[in-house]
């Protein structure tokens, strides 16, 4: 009988949950991870996202006159929990923010069936840029291939790359392997030697073997595709082995202030590509102070709010907020459906003027999306660690789209073929 009552109770609760009443407004759940091994990097991002939506609700009464029901579902970065959260929220949600490449991978094929847009800003699958194939997925404003391309372009501007050796230190995981196809193509085109050095998930904190290999190979540059504990591990190891920091560059997730603060001055010169930048003078920061921090609605603190990751969280919610606004204008109603939001995210036009209206000048490069461009390819800055904080070390660099576009198209078609039947939106101009 115990089995029975337990199962029956479980089923009843499950049914309750699915049909349960939620708070009024547009339901935009976030599959957050404030617990688990990646919590340190997750919390500032989640706080930024949450605070932006709190600001919208407190200052403007929501977006387009309707409150935003911004809710978090805790995943602890576990794919299993992520799928649980997706199933739990998909009934009412107008968007899914999966927050991990593993969860994105899992949820991506389901979106055509469930018809809910996935918003994966700056992560996920690079070919998601092809909106013809991935009709419901968005990785605004830059894909990993774009990021790799910006890094290579920046290095190219520092001197000819042919004959040089670049070590690619990456997490041995779908996320870390993501830029490899682009980097291999670039190595062939520009004549540099690429040395991929994988870091297993279990070796994140202890990378002595990898750095021994780096010392032996004597690369001219190290490009790091790391996340969570791997960043701090690599940076401290680089300092220990006296690798010249100015020749080490990372993806945007490897540009976390806290990771560099551990080494402080010794980390001077370390660079990271980024599509967001904290601007303490931006009007939105003053508004946040007034409407969110002072009434005590934030979970963040002053130090965190001045960091790169918090402001990236703001930008991510801004993208979603703007998507909602555009969708509302198009649909002519405040209460939009997931399909409306998809239209909104496809027709974003974030110009300098719009950023100024939002009070976010300089926090993200301007970009626009379209039906067949689900990324926006905004371009990014190279940030440099000056010993205390990240500063901009370059002007806006645009990715090499001529080279990336065919790669994206091919990978997207391969994906669609492997997942037959997969609907392709032929209406999009190519």
């Amino acid at each position: 009988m115990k089995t029975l009552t337990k199962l029956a109770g479980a089923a009843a609760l499950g049914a309750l949950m699915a049909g349960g009443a939620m708070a009024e407004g547009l339901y935009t759940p976030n599959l957050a991870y404030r617990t688990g091994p990646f919590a340190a990097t997750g919390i500032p991002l989640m706080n930024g996202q949450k605070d932006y939506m709190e600001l919208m609700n407190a200052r403007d009464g929501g977006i387009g006159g309707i409150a935003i029901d911004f809710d978090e579902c805790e995943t602890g970065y576990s794919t299993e929990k992520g799928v649980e959260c997706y199933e739990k929220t998909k009934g009412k949600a107008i968007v899914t923010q999966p927050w991990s490449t593993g969860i994105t991978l899992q949820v991506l094929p389901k979106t055509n069936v469930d018809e809910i847009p996935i918003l994966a800003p700056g992560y996920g699958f690079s070919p998601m840029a092809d909106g013809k194939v991935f009709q419901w997925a968005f990785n605004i404003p830059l894909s990993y291939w774009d990021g790799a391309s910006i890094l290579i372009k920046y290095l190219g501007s520092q001197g000819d790359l042919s004959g040089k050796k670049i070590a690619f230190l990456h997490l041995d995981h779908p996320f870390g392997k993501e830029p490899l196809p682009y980097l291999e193509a670039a190595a062939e085109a520009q004549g540099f030697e690429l040395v991929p050095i994988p870091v297993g998930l279990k070796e994140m904190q202890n990378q002595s073997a990898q750095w021994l290999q780096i010392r032996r190979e004597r690369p001219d540059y190290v490009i790091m595709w790391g996340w969570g504990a791997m960043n701090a591990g690599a940076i401290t190891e680089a300092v220990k082995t006296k690798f010249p920091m100015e020749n080490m560059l990372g993806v945007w997730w490897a540009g976390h202030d806290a990771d560099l603060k551990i080494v402080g001055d010794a980390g001077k010169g370390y660079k990271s590509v980024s599509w967001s930048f904290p601007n303490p003078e931006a009007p939105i920061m003053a508004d946040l102070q007034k409407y969110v921090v002072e009434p005590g609605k934030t979970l963040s603190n002053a130090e965190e709010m001045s960091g790169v990751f918090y402001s990236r969280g703001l930008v991510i919610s801004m993208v979603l907020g703007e998507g909602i606004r555009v969708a509302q204008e198009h649909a002519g109603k405040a209460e939009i459906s997931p399909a409306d939001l998809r239209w909104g995210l496809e027709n974003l036009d974030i110009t300098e003027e719009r950023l100024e209206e939002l009070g976010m000048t300089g926090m993200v490069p301007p970009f626009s999306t379209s039906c067949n461009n689900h990324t926006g390819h905004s371009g990014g800055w190279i940030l440099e660690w000056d010993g205390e904080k990240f500063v901009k070390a370059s002007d806006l660099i645009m990715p090499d789209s001529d080279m990336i576009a065919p790669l994206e198209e091919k990978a997207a078609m391969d994906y669609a073929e492997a997942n037959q039947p997969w609907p392709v939106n032929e209406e999009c101009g190519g």
Partner: protein
Amino acid sequence: MLYRTAGQFKTSYKSDMALFPVRQDAVLLMVILGFAWVVFPLTASEFAFQTLLIPILIYALAAQGLNILTGYAGQLSLGTAAFMGVGAYACYKLVTLFPWMNPVVAILLSGFFSAGVGVAFGIPSLRIKGFYLAIATLAAQFFLVWLFEKWGWLYNYNASGAIQVPNLEMFGTYVAGPQASSIVQYYVVLVVVTLMTVLCINLTRGTLGRSWKATRDMDIAAELIGINLMRSKLTAFAVSSYVVGVAGALFVFMWRGAAEPNLFDIPLSFRILFIAIIGGLGSILGNYLGAILIVGLPVVLGTVPQALGLPISSAMVEHLNIMIVGALIVFFLIIEPHGLARLWALIREKLIIWPFPH
């Protein structure tokens, strides 16, 4: 009262050793099966299917496979997740190499691959025992996960290094992949799990099962009375890995939809070991009870605060959840170290003699 056995006379040895010596057991099982086959599918929501029903069945099956090896044959193994991985990757290769193959057949076939690998890694068990064997199976765990990462052919040289379940059809309906509906997947899982459970019950009650138990209880004595230890141990590894492999294929094809190599790493092995231990080693029922406690309960607990309308943040819910489930595990192990199955057996005994305890 409910369990009154008065009037149920056993007149032959056979009826005394029957699977259900007490009629009420059979009735109870029928009720449970009725729920599993009819009531749940009709009433469950998408969420209940995806987070409770399907995973509980799959985890219970995996624990059942481990239980054959550890609970019945007494060979401690820490490589369960890796053998699940072998099943999953074998199934992936089968359906991509032979797209015409019936998915259920592919799932059942993939078990043979993990059985083969299991036997290969079981060979050391002929010489080493106990904790030392656990270390040897740990080698399987590390080696196989490494292989899933490095051998590109296994994942068809995908750039991401992960396997993705394609849409698979059977008799005109999708049974796997994103197009498949939850109820269809549930029934496929239920059919396979029922089949495997019947197989396991019969095996463990038969000659093979008795030779396993003899090996577990005292291998020297077993050898002296004429049990071939090599056969007994290796068949345990083979049957166990087969069941675990099938569970692995179901895990990826009927539930997850995609898998990266590190999914099959040690935490999953431990999770299944915990299910088997908390459910009860050397029992079939225990695997289901353990899976309900370890897999189902956290999901249910996680939904409680929201259903009651308590304003607790989701991170807090997660912390509370971990604490509550941990405390429950300790609690159950203190009141009954032999697991939930033994707890149920005690309750059942008490019910039979109730209301006259002496």
